């Protein structure tokens, strides 16, 4: 594991700017894991990341769809795997076509399918801060993309 990077974000504007920045740094085959409790703001962050990736559409949480597909600069695959935690047959879900495909994968609740995830990925953990719109973002991960993003953010 590389060194964790911890960033404190204050307010919705900063959250949006941060998300857009992350989005602009992602490229095809990148996998971004978004973890955090209910209400931490994973989907909100995804919307800004989507903007950074050039996605025009309204981004909504794929709680029941599992995967929403968008077209930005690249194909963007937005996952919400919350409900797969208790599932046995994870490997047959056909996710590999996305993980190893030509787009960017953004996975909310990624920790629930830890065993399925490719090694090289960027992991963002969002937690609530002291104040209402304050968020603490921890960035971790493996691989070239992760290293590149951390370098840029510093």
């Amino acid at each position: 594991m590389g060194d964790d990077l911890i960033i404190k974000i204050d307010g919705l504007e900063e959250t949006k700017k941060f998300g857009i920045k992350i989005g602009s740094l992602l490229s095809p085959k990148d996998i971004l894991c978004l973890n955090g409790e209910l209400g931490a703001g994973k989907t909100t962050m995804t919307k800004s990341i989507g903007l950074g990736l050039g996605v025009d559409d309204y981004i909504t949480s794929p709680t029941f769809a599992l995967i929403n597909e968008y077209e930005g600069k690249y194909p963007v695959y937005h996952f919400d795997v919350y409900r797969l935690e208790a599932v046995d047959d994870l490997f047959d879900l056909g996710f590999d076509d996305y993980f190893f495909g030509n787009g960017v994968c953004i996975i909310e609740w990624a920790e629930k399918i830890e065993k399925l995830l490719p090694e090289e990925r960027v992991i963002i953990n969002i937690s609530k801060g002291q104040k209402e719109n304050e968020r603490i973002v921890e960035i971790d991960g493996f691989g070239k993309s992760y290293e590149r993003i951390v370098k840029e953010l510093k």
Partner: protein
Amino acid sequence: MLTLAIETSCDETSCAILKDGREVLSNIISSQIEIHKEYGGVVPEIASRKHIENINQIIQESLEEAKVGFDDIDIVGVTQGPGLVGALLIGISSAKAIAYALDIPLIGVNHIQGHICANYIEHKNLEPPFICLIVSGGHSYLVHVKGYTEYKLIGQTRDDAAGEAFDKVARALGLPYPGGPHIDRLAKLGNKNAIEFPRVMLEKDSYDFSFSGLKTSVLNYLNQMEQKNENIVVEDVAASFQAAILDVLVEKAFRLAKEKGLNKIVMAGGVASNSGLRDRMFEKGQEEGVEIYHPSKVLCTDNGAMIGSAAYFNYKAGQKSDLGLKVKPNLGL
């Protein structure tokens, strides 16, 4: 004119035979709800596997029930999108094969248009123009339907679809998937004024929807009650939440009808089965002299007949697809 129509956009495999766009000779639907229940919702890969297992059986049943053979079919309709890519491709591949084999026209159909056309089947005398409120798990649209193949999208959701909000709140209340019908059932037994949930109308003239604020409000309420160790009356939560959604849907639909000078509002999509919504719409319709239409329960869910109807009207208007029809998982109106 006989249409054979295939619908596989999500977790229902369906094939229907229609006569002239409104008369249903058969509408065979195989639902996978039981299979996906374990996963709390549809899993695209599993849906696709089930479609390929079922599709030809479903097609055969639709022909037998309609008492027709392949040679009697004049056109083939199929859902082109929106929906799950893998699932849509099964229907599209089958439809292409049949259209080519029989050397008859293939018509790719927009699933959302299909929902609108379900009403032409249900109500033989219904003709455009009218306002259509399309609400389902995946979509929330307010549409000005000008003609059989002419639509103007006026309002849509900026975050969760109405049906999705129902399912999420239902899950938070511990109700099984799909949760919408359970909320509807419980709401009848509860007090809709028990809890004040927000009615998010957005900007003054907007016809768009936004349900995630309401959803968050309900989740916060449930959290607070838990922390205070207070008893949650599920029926009241269901009733109050449902009232909040319905207020928004009804207000906007009627306002749009008034603005366009139309006295017909048509409902479509899975949430159009919601008895609370139907009651509210009919009630206000009576007050304001507006006719309200909705499909029967079966036609509200995903089914081939509605696709057949849309295919027929599109074909009559001169639309035809070629055998290179692309799947369009994000197709909008």
